[in-house]
């Protein structure tokens, strides 16, 4: 788990994002055990109360579940929960492209804009 303590992105959010990435890419599979707060706190040197908040958030979203006495595990439908936003955003993108096409904007220009926005977003997430 790579946490950038100097990032403008709060640590608890980075932890959530990292777990979501690991789940979406299949590094963590449904019913895999997540690290304990204690281990993670020690490994990356982060306030355990902060980590607790990250885990609580993941649990509230249904991405993981707790088995008392055993630990936290990735939910069966974690991937679909994490990616459910995607179809929503694609619909918005669809509409925006429709509007731009109606304004006679060239497809090449739209693609340039998409690349630009994507790179900016990635830079922001990783800074």
């Amino acid at each position, binding site marked *: 788990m790579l946490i950038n303590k100097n990032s403008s992105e709060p*640590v608890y*959010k980075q932890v959530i994002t990292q777990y979501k990435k690991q789940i979406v890419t299949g590094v963590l599979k449904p019913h895999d055990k997540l690290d304990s707060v204690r281990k993670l*706190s020690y490994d990356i*040197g*982060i306030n355990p109360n902060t980590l607790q*908040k990250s885990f609580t958030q993941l649990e509230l979203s249904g991405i993981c579940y707790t088995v008392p006495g055993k630990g936290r595990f990735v939910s069966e439908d974690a991937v679909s929960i994490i990616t459910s936003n995607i179809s929503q955003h694609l619909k918005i993108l669809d509409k925006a492209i429709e509007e731009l096409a109606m304004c006679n904007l060239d497809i090449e220009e739209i693609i340039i804009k998409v690349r630009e926005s994507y790179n900016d977003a990635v830079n922001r997430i990783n800074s």
Partner: protein
Amino acid sequence: MIKIKNATKTFGHFKAIKNVTCSINKGSIFGIVGSNGAGKSTLLRLISGVYHLDKGEVLLDNEFIYDNPKIKKNIIFLSDTPFVELGTTAKKLMKEYAFHYDNFDKKEYKELIEIFKLDKNMPLSSFSKGMLRQAMIIIALSCNTKYIVLDEALDGLDAMIRGLVKKKIYNKVLDNNTTVIISSHSLRELEDFCDSVILIHKGELVFQQQLNDMDSSFIKVQVALQDATTDCLFEAVDVVKYMKSGSVSSLIVKGNEQEIIKTIQKFNPILLETVPLSLEEIFTYELQQYGYALDKDNESALNLEVK
């Protein structure tokens, strides 16, 4: 839990702490930041029962702490300038603390002395400043009290030792629900380390911020709406500061970043960008509100380090 209500402490004519009210939750790591002379040490000493209040009250688990040996057993205060008697060694000091603190863990003390590579039989007066701090921190951790109060204890330690001390503290918080109260000059340090932080300026509590709380964070928003009027935004989100430059508005908004983005998107903005505020930015803004105008040429007027 520690409850501080309207705490005031005066030295002669000097009001070191004026009417401070706040609470410190059990099992939290609570940070106190402020410039030199702001009153941090005084507040810590009031919390630890070292100083007597002039007005107000400090309650530890619902009991007054001053002159209360029963409650004092639950708290250890580590000063920023520890005083050691001539000839005292770490070992002698350990025995003294072990005598006063019921839960002193000698095994833990031995382990820590080894990890930090200190000589427990060498006179503490011959230790460097940093080593002395380390020795005192080891003793404080070994006391295993419910409350640990650290007055700038981490400032001046090298990065590796600091990291190690923090991890030890995290373990105590996890295992024993220990409450840690720490003061520092460095906002950056406290931002990573603490659950909540208060800013003390000229003896007063200027601002308190719960860190890592998604719903009470401060977000910088740059937004441009289609019809260029932004009045509608003020009703939709909690705007704390507002600046307009042409058709682009810069706002500081308080709340949950995702919720704020969702709300503003309903207005179909042409431009919408958000970035969380750093603690330093929040505090700078709050101090400005407080009337402490920062000289633009002198950004370190706060005497706060941001490493």
